[in-house]
């Protein structure tokens, strides 16, 4: 064999081999328990300020256990991407943070998660210690896949009470008509009635979640999620869209909301600086304001439920937002018993107290007795009662659907608000899911 052919053949051979390795690497590498590290449980969580409580729980667990838990924090915005790319490999975490619902539906379907019903059978507290409306979010096909951790985050209508007062609005709007009335008064007072971080897209989605729930009831979205896409064309759906259009066209959000973000402090600053009257936002808005402007958060910031809609199907006490975060357990974990022991810490008094101390609101039945320890007990109690009394707590649309639907939903809601698509365009986009 001469040098040249030998060279090219070996090169080709190497290339083919590498291709083989690459493809094998792509394929489901999910092995069995024995390919996982010994005496270690990996715990993946969304990286943010809440991690110190998670670290404290891990430390507490590790004090008495031979199997040590290793906390892997994954920077927030990339969490779901990173999780999906490692979950079916040998590097998958044993226990991981998620939002329940659609965020784990694909994993359940791919048979990657451990149903927790056996754990619950041994220790009923793993289910009974949590508020039912929250626990249900991680139940798929009648099997429980998640134990609530961290806190609940309902979406509320925040307001700047000084701005409302100056515009002659006595109380936060309890009905849709009062909201429309307040919008007119705020416009007359020369401020943007409602701050909206439209560039982030998910704040826009919050308006759809509540409008559809109030006008059509919780059944419409659930039916759509279950595959009946005809409901998007229903009369109630069109009515909800029409009312949203009316609100946008009335100038409730000003004209430049598509350039404003919540995440970089744009829309919260509009509210706190008195240039806007309201903002519809998750309960974390309080912490955001407390961080940026404590004076405002404690004295001026007001909050109320999303207004009731006369003649609507939905219960005015229904909530929408992030019901809670959950820990789920990977099916291939080497130490299921230890994982169960760790999950039991999630309803312990110590865990609840630590969560409350950093401003989160856990959803255990023993939470109520510690609410006085919160930095703002009044706010904590208000939220807890909302969640406890809510007949239905709608998980955010982009988390109720599997992650692949997120781009479509976000694009549709923002295009509808900016007028790029009309009712039919929105209906078509949602039916494509």
């Amino acid at each position, binding site marked *: 064999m001469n040098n040249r052919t030998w060279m090219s053949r070996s090169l080709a051979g190497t*290339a083919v081999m590498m*291709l083989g390795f*690459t493809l094998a690497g*792509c394929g*489901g590498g999910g092995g069995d328990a024995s390919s996982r590290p010994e005496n270690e449980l990996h715990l993946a969580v969304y990286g943010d300020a809440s991690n110190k409580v998670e670290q404290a729980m891990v430390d507490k667990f590790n004090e008495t256990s031979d199997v040590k838990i290793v906390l892997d924090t994954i920077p927030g915005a990339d969490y779901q991407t990173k999780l999906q790319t490692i979950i079916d490999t040998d590097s998958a975490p044993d226990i991981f943070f998620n939002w329940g619902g659609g965020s784990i539906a694909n994993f359940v379907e*791919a048979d990657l998660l451990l149903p927790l019903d056996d754990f619950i059978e041994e220790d009923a507290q793993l289910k009974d210690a949590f508020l039912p409306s929250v626990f249900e979010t991680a139940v798929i096909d009648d099997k429980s896949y998640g134990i609530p951790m961290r806190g609940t985050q309902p979406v509320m209508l925040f307001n700047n009470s000084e701005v409302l007062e100056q515009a002659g609005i006595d109380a936060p709007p309890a009905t849709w008509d009062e909201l429309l009335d307040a919008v007119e008064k705020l416009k007359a007072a020369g401020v943007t009635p409602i701050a909206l971080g439209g560039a982030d897209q998910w704040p826009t989605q919050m308006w759809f979640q509540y409008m559809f729930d109030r006008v059509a009831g919780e059944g419409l979205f659930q039916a759509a999620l279950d595959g009946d896409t005809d409901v998007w064309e229903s009369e109630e759906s069109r009515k909800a869209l029409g009312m949203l259009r009316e609100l946008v066209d009335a100038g409730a959000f000003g004209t430049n909301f598509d*350039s404003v973000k919540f995440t970089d402090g744009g829309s919260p600053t509009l509210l706190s600086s008195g240039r806007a009257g309201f903002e519809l936002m998750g309960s974390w808005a309080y912490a955001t304001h407390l961080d940026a402007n404590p004076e405002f958060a404690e004295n001026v910031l007001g909050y109320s439920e999303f207004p009731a809609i006369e003649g609507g199907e939905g219960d005015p006490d229904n909530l929408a937002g992030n019901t809670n975060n959950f820990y789920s357990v990977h099916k291939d974990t080497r130490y299921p018993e230890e994982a169960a022991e760790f999950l039991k810490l999630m309803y312990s008094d110590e865990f609840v107290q630590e969560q409350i101390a950093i401003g989160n609101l856990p959803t255990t039945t023993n939470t109520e007795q510690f609410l006085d320890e919160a930095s703002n007990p009044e706010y904590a109690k208000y939220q807890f009662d909302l969640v406890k009394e809510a007949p239905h707590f709608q998980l955010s649309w982009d988390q109720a659907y599997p992650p692949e639907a997120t781009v479509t939903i976000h694009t549709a809601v923002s295009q509808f608000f900016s007028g790029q698509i009309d009712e039919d365009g929105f209906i078509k986009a949602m039916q494509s899911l």
Partner: protein
Amino acid sequence: MTTLATRKRPAPGGSPQSRPARSGASSVGRPGFAWALPATIFFALFALVPLAAVAVLSFTSWSGLGDPKFVGLENWETLIADPVMLKSLWLSLLFIVLGVVTQTPLSILLGVWAAGNQRNRAVLSAIYFIPLLLSSAAISVLWRALLDPNFGIPGQLSWLFGDGNLLGTQSGAIGVLIFVGMWQFTPFHTLIYQGAAKGIPTVLYQAAAIDGAGMMRQFFSITLPQLRNTAITSIILMVVGGLTTFETVLILTNGGPGTDTTITAFYMYQEAFQSFDFGVGSAIALVLVVVATVISLVVVKVSGYDKMNSSLEGL
């Protein structure tokens, strides 16, 4: 690596193909294939193999869970029928054209100026090059904050920007992305032109001055023609850079408003890593490879760069 070792050793037994042992001047000549081996292996490992894997993936349906399933041409049919895909290609082309048109004149002028001997030149050049040292992500976050409609520059200059809804309209968002791209990449191209302008022999200018050519005439008749090949290099870099622009779009506009700034590279990311459809994402990636190759070939062919004529025209 073993191949490299084998290749260098004199072949035992002296087969007809084996070269004589190297000695003195006889070894000077064209370097053998072995010299290219390390680069070839790295190129194969980090470019060709992934490219082949992406080509295979484009015929599969895969969400990252389980094994990829072969679906034939389904992804390609989806893409061809997808209005966003077509729109993203047009947007990518628009970004490339606008990028070249805005950055080239500016970098030529700055580069030629920076090649001179003026006072303060070194200090000012150093300041102009600062954007080159910043990461795209940092630049995008910076401009995002500066362009906030209520609390940024547009909020202060409402006579110019109106309600400041720059990122909420298609023309505004494209304008912002082109401007930020210009701010970020002009220093790099300035550097290229500066180097090239310094290489132009001064005798040409001296001769022109004797013939009575002024500054303008010298610039258009000597400097610009001498920078021809540099300009082609710079433009090819801009084209490839424009096609793969990603961080600025992700952070500044997230492809919005709607899909109005969803260029192909960003659409690839959205499909693969947000919608977890690695099959369609891979197909878009292949389209990008093809488009980039075709554009580069056309530029090289049209400009005569492939003939590699000396840039020292007139000498």
